[in-house]
């Protein structure tokens, strides 16, 4: 019964979405206020319908209703509750319902909080948002119905893919989807603006918070995914340049560009058509990402069971959405009036450089990801494009980006003084030099590129701190004034500083983690010791332990350094009872500067009468920085958002705003 209610709600949602896609758009064209006014209520009803459907699906999972095919294939009564819940989106059908749910939530937020939007813009935005919804609801109902029944019902389900039974991955898809789908807001606003033929600072002020939300969640989602790959796949890698990873990374790159170019539209009224194009491209790349992941056209370490028929449907959807919006862009964009001028050396110029580098980087990732597809389509053989390609194209583009990112915020709007900015960065130069010398000393004789990465990170961190110090008057004023200026600084400025610092730390983490790791593999018997970089791992014993839906071989290691016990690590090799699949649970010990990482493999044979085990140990320098840096970037995004929200739509928003402490000044 519950499944039928869910199915029915989805169909109802499609009907409502159709109304929402057509009526407000026609109303806006004819200037019919009553028709335009249908946008908001339909958006709320659509959300209610989809939320009901999602709730029904989740209920089916939580109550282990194995008469529903989707539940039967992806859940099991022995599964812990958290994985029963996360199994709702841990499969294709459920994840698509989550996709449209988030789309509807964003639409409903505009409907509910967009009172001060011009009515025609609001109607068009909601209509475009709903068009996307119609496409995906059709996709779900026609090719991937999550509520299909199985008759006769089996006694138990087939269990969620064991690799997905992990806290990191339980929340990875929702985060990632809020990011992906969040860019639909920027897209809908861009299309609506093209139809209206008007883009102004108010438009940018509306688009920016949505972009910021999407960007922050996407950053968190990608970080969570990398973290999961790092500890769960058992290879100790955190980024493989795998097609599925690239699928989420491309919208991130272009979305980051959009985030920065919308600042120029908001503050300087320039770069409008470019920003519109970026908004279209970002969401298009989100759609392409969905297509790549869901259609199975690319081989990938992450490829889950996929179905080519669905790929054809999403491909059609892509052609209509991307093709349509680009045609609209080509037709309407020339009508938009250009705004303020600026010299090449200026804050705007720096942001344009940021945009050029980020989009170029996205283009190279795009080529590398899709090249195997093109080659195969033209019968050129099967190839894969691996990390060497991306390291040789992506990394060289990031070097000027980081260098320029240090200087950019020091430049003035409209016309900047490069020499003056560089002169004020004395501290950053000294800081970079110190970092370089320390890094070179610590890693003498190893990869020189690691030193280069740390140098860049040091430069960026030095510049960010200098800029922040100059803003708050550090070393120039009394400590009390400095504190006052710090608390008075707009949240947007705080957000920028935090996010850029986070980026610097991420760059450092990425350099250290990919270039200086150590690893050893050996066969160990109980009582034997294996050493890595001065840490001695003694295998005490290997036990069999029983989990809720698996049994595991758990190796217990005592880790010593110079004879002093530091910690105990217990990696596992789990065998899930229902599917019979095995997973590796690595054991980690994080220190501020490095991770110790232990994996236990198969029981290796019986040499000498005593059973031995393959053991792999890693010493991973700076990996914790990677996660810390990503967290800082996300945090910076949210801090910046807390500033913007106060200013949305200017006059009327005041009354809804929280009491503001008197020291908060409006952003410059």
């Amino acid at each position: 019964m519950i499944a039928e209610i869910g199915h029915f709600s989805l169909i109802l949602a499609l009907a409502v979405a159709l109304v929402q896609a057509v009526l407000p758009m026609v109303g806006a064209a004819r200037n019919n206020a009553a028709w335009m006014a249908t946008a908001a209520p339909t958006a709320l009803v659509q959300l209610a319908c989809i939320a009901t459907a999602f709730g029904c699906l989740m209920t089916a999972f939580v109550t282990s209703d194995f008469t529903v095919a989707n539940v039967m294939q992806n859940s099991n009564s022995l599964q812990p509750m958290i994985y029963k819940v996360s199994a709702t989106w841990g499969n294709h059908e459920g994840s698509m319902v989550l996709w449209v749910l988030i789309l509807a939530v964003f639409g409903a937020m505009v409907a509910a909080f967009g009172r001060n939007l011009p009515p025609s813009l609001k109607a068009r935005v909601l209509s475009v948002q709903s068009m996307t919804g119609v496409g995906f609801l059709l996709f779900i109902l026609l090719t991937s119905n999550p509520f299909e029944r199985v008759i006769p019902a089996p006694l138990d389900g087939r269990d969620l893919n064991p690799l997905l039974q992990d806290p990191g991955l339980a929340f990875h898809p929702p985060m990632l989807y809020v990011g992906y789908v969040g860019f639909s807001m920027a897209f809908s606003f861009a299309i609506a603006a093209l139809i209206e033929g008007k883009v102004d600072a108010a438009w940018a002020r509306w688009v920016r918070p949505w972009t910021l939300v999407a960007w922050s969640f996407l950053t968190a989602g990608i970080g969570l995914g990398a973290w999961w790959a790092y500890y769960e796949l058992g290879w100790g890698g955190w980024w493989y340049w795998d097609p599925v990873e690239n699928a989420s990374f491309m919208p991130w790159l272009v979305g980051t560009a959009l985030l920065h170019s919308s600042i120029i539209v908001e503050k300087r009224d320039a770069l409008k058509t470019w920003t519109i194009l970026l908004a279209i491209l970002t969401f298009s790349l989100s759609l392409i990402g969905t297509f790549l992941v869901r259609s199975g056209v690319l081989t990938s370490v992450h490829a889950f069971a996929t179905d080519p028929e669905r790929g054809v449907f999403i491909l059609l959807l892509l052609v209509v959405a991307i093709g349509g919006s680009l045609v609209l862009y080509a037709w309407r964009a020339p009508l938009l009036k250009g705004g303020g001028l600026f010299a090449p050396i200026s804050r705007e110029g720096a942001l344009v450089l940021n945009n050029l580098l980020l989009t170029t980087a996205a283009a190279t990732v795009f080529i590398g990801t899709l090249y195997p597809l093109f080659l195969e389509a033209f019968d050129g053989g099967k190839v894969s494009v691996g990390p060497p390609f991306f390291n040789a194209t992506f990394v060289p583009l990031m070097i000027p980006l980081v260098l320029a990112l240090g200087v950019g915020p020091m430049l003035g709007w409209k016309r900047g003084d490069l020499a003056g900015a560089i002169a004020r960065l004395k501290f950053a130069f000294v800081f970079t030099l110190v970092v370089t010398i320390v890094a070179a000393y610590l890693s003498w004789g190893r990869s020189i590129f690691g030193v280069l990465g740390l140098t860049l990170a040091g430069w960026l961190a030095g510049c960010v701190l200098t800029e922040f110090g100059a803003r708050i008057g550090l070393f120039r004023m009394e400590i009390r004034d400095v504190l006052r200026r710090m608390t008075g600084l707009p949240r947007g400025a705080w957000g920028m500083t935090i996010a850029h610092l986070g980026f610097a730390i991420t760059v450092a983490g990425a350099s250290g983690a990919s270039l200086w790791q150590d690893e050893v593999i050996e066969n160990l018997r109980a009582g034997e010791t294996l050493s890595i970089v001065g840490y001695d791992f003694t295998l005490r014993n290997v036990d069999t332990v029983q989990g809720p839906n698996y049994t595991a071989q758990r190796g217990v290691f005592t880790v010593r350094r110079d004879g002093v016990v530091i910690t105990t690590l217990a990696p596992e090799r789990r065998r899930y009872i229902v599917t019979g699949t095995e997973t590796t649970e690595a054991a980690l010990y994080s220190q501020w500067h490095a991770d110790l990482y232990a994996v236990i493999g198969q029981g290796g044979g019986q040499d000498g009468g005593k059973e031995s085990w393959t053991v792999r140990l890693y010493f991973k320098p700076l990996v914790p920085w990677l996660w810390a840096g990503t967290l800082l970037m996300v945090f910076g995004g949210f801090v910046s958002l807390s500033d913007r929200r106060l200013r949305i739509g200017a006059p009327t928003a005041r009354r809804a705003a929280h009491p503001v402490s008197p020291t908060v000044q409006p952003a410059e």
Partner: protein
Amino acid sequence: MNYMTPPTRSRAATRKRRRLYAVLSGGAMLAIAAALVLTAFEDGIVFFYSPSDLAEKQAGSEPIKPSQLLRIGGLVEEGSVKHAPDGVTNLFTVTDLEKTVSVAYKGILPDLFREGQGIVTSGNLRPDGLFVATEVLAKHDETYMPPEVADALKRAGAWKGATDKDKATSRKGKTP
């Protein structure tokens, strides 16, 4: 700039010039990207061979150099998985049910690696015909066959699984 021209025209001229800068810098960026991509394609692309392809290639006029990174894929032959004397190197045979390749891989095999399973592995081919793998990929989902492997098996005429269409329908209506 000519200061004698009226401000409106000079503004339009500046705008034009700025646009030219923007187009030029965009073009320069594209050129850099193209150069990077082309050089990276030289050694960044890894070709995929099935065991039959590999045998054909080795018999041909241009055998694969030991330095060239390549990927091979097929089924892990039943009963072929062994440990080398050092205890940590895995030896196994990859087959497309027509030709086989011996593979050596030092390290812990992925979770879903087992005999009879489709895998993809990348590494180098030694002149003596042993494939020294640096990476072994088995898929997250045990019912999933890497497309390359499925194709390789189809070409060798050994594909026993359902066709794509059958697979889709059987999945929908599957009962235990």
